[in-house]
């Protein structure tokens, strides 16, 4: 994963990405016990409205130049399938803005904070998200004030109430 992170960071140096953060399962497993996952999701800000029909085209061009194979939405970067996801709604956008700078495998990187990951899981509502969200409450020590603030801001109160009644 070290080489993968170094390659991803080069996209910042090249100005192809303005900002990115690790999201999805690989971000969740920073805070809870790991389970199986098969890709590395990144939330990215490309810092440009140009090419809005093909916003990730520069990343795919970069991948081709570096002989990283692509398979639909995934780019195989140093052995790991990486999916680049644009900030697809205001919650995800704010999560990226507030992402945490960390070091993994001695490489500087950025990762979504647990309270935002929890809110995104609540918003997405896949079965795997619910299963992991339950574990976040028991394993991750989230800040309840911060989590509730995010829930209220993005109108997720009803979903949270329904989740809490069913699972907590």
């Amino acid at each position, binding site marked *: *994963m*070290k*080489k*993968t992170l170094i390659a991803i960071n080069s996209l910042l140096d090249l100005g192809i990405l303005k900002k990115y953060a690790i999201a999805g399962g690989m971000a969740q*497993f*920073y*805070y*809870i*016990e*790991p*389970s*199986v*996952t*098969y890709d590395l999701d990144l939330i990215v800000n490309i810092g440009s409205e140009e090419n809005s029909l093909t916003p990730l085209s520069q990343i795919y061009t970069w991948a081709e130049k570096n002989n990283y194979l692509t*398979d639909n939405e*995934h780019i195989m970067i*140093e*052995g*790991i*399938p990486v999916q680049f996801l644009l900030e697809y709604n205001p919650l995800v956008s704010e999560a990226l803005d507030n992402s945490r700078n960390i070091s*993994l*495998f001695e490489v500087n990187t950025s990762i979504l904070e647990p309270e935002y990951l929890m809110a995104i899981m609540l918003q997405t509502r896949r079965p795997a998200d619910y299963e992991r969200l339950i*574990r976040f409450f*028991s*394993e*991750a020590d989230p800040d309840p004030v911060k989590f509730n603030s995010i829930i209220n801001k993005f109108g997720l109160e009803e979903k949270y109430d329904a989740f809490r009644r069913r699972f907590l």
Partner: protein
Amino acid sequence: MNNEYLKNLSDHKSVFHKKGAKTPYEEKFKIIIELQKMSIEMQNRNAKRPGRDKKRCVWRVEN
């Protein structure tokens, strides 16, 4: 089985998983690779089962 025993069991499991959550990320990464190997092996043994995702693969990484 008494309720106190079950509560103790549940509490100890909770502590166990909380401790697992604090495992360094680099160690968790190794665990994920091992889980991928096991999952792929199980998939291959159940090749006729519907819903098998052929895109899933074990990451080929050095660390």
